[in-house]
């Protein structure tokens, strides 16, 4: 019983510490979701579903995908905690925020 509980709680601990992968879709000149909260160590995949290139560019130089061609994606592993506003450097009206907790 104790063992079962122990393994159960260990299993839970493993599940919560396992890094997750989140997807942000870039479509119709928008980041969806434009405001995303993840845990440190998680990965985020930005998928460009528009007909032309976009970028995922941190306003504080924390990350920069450079051009993501149509149909392509870019993956970023969020190591550092913090709030990271970003934009598309080609289309500055496109804005997003990545929150790493």
């Amino acid at each position, binding site marked *: 019983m104790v063992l079962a509980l122990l393994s159960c709680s260990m299993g839970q601990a493993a599940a919560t510490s396992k890094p997750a992968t989140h997807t942000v879709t870039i*479509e*119709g*000149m*928008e980041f969806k979701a434009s405001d995303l909260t993840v845990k440190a160590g998680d990965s985020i995949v930005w998928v460009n579903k*528009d*007909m*032309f*290139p976009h970028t995922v560019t941190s306003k504080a130089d924390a990350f920069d995908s450079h051009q993501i061609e*149509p149909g392509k994606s870019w993956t970023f592993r969020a190591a550092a905690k913090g709030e990271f506003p970003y934009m598309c450097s*080609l*289309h*500055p*009206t*496109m804005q997003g925020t990545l929150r790493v907790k």
Partner: protein
Amino acid sequence: MKLSAIVIAGLLLAPAAGASAQGINDAQIASIVVTANQVDIDAGKLAQTQSSNGEVKKFANLMVTDHTGVNKSATALVTKLKVTPEDNATSQSLKSGGDTNLKTLKALNGAAFDKAYVDHEVAYHQAVIDAVDKTLIPNAKNAELKALLVKVRPAFVAHLEHAKHLQASLGGK
């Protein structure tokens, strides 16, 4: 600027409005979409070589890239749908309007070129958005063609905002 906006709007909307009595068909819409993008690509290519303003060149690069991307998708869709783009009064007006604009721009250089190019981009994008809203989307029969128009609209709006921003910065000099 105001006059050129009216002229472009007239070119784009009048023939389409005339045709909309019977409604323009998808083949005609496809032709309008491809021509509208091509006209802006051609103007952008001219600005890439003829402008010496970094911001104007950046905008021109974006126009060439984005409108080329849209045309690639539009062409892929019409090929898939087995629609042959059909020349019509609106696409012809767009083409001749584009040619006139190129001719005007080629005679200019420096700040005068930048102003004329950007002024035209503002008017042109506004006219294209109006055509998309009033003529192309309402008349598109095929769901995928309609979806493409809906999907591309925000890009034209962003281009318009970008061009207006540029216009204000050039005017302030």
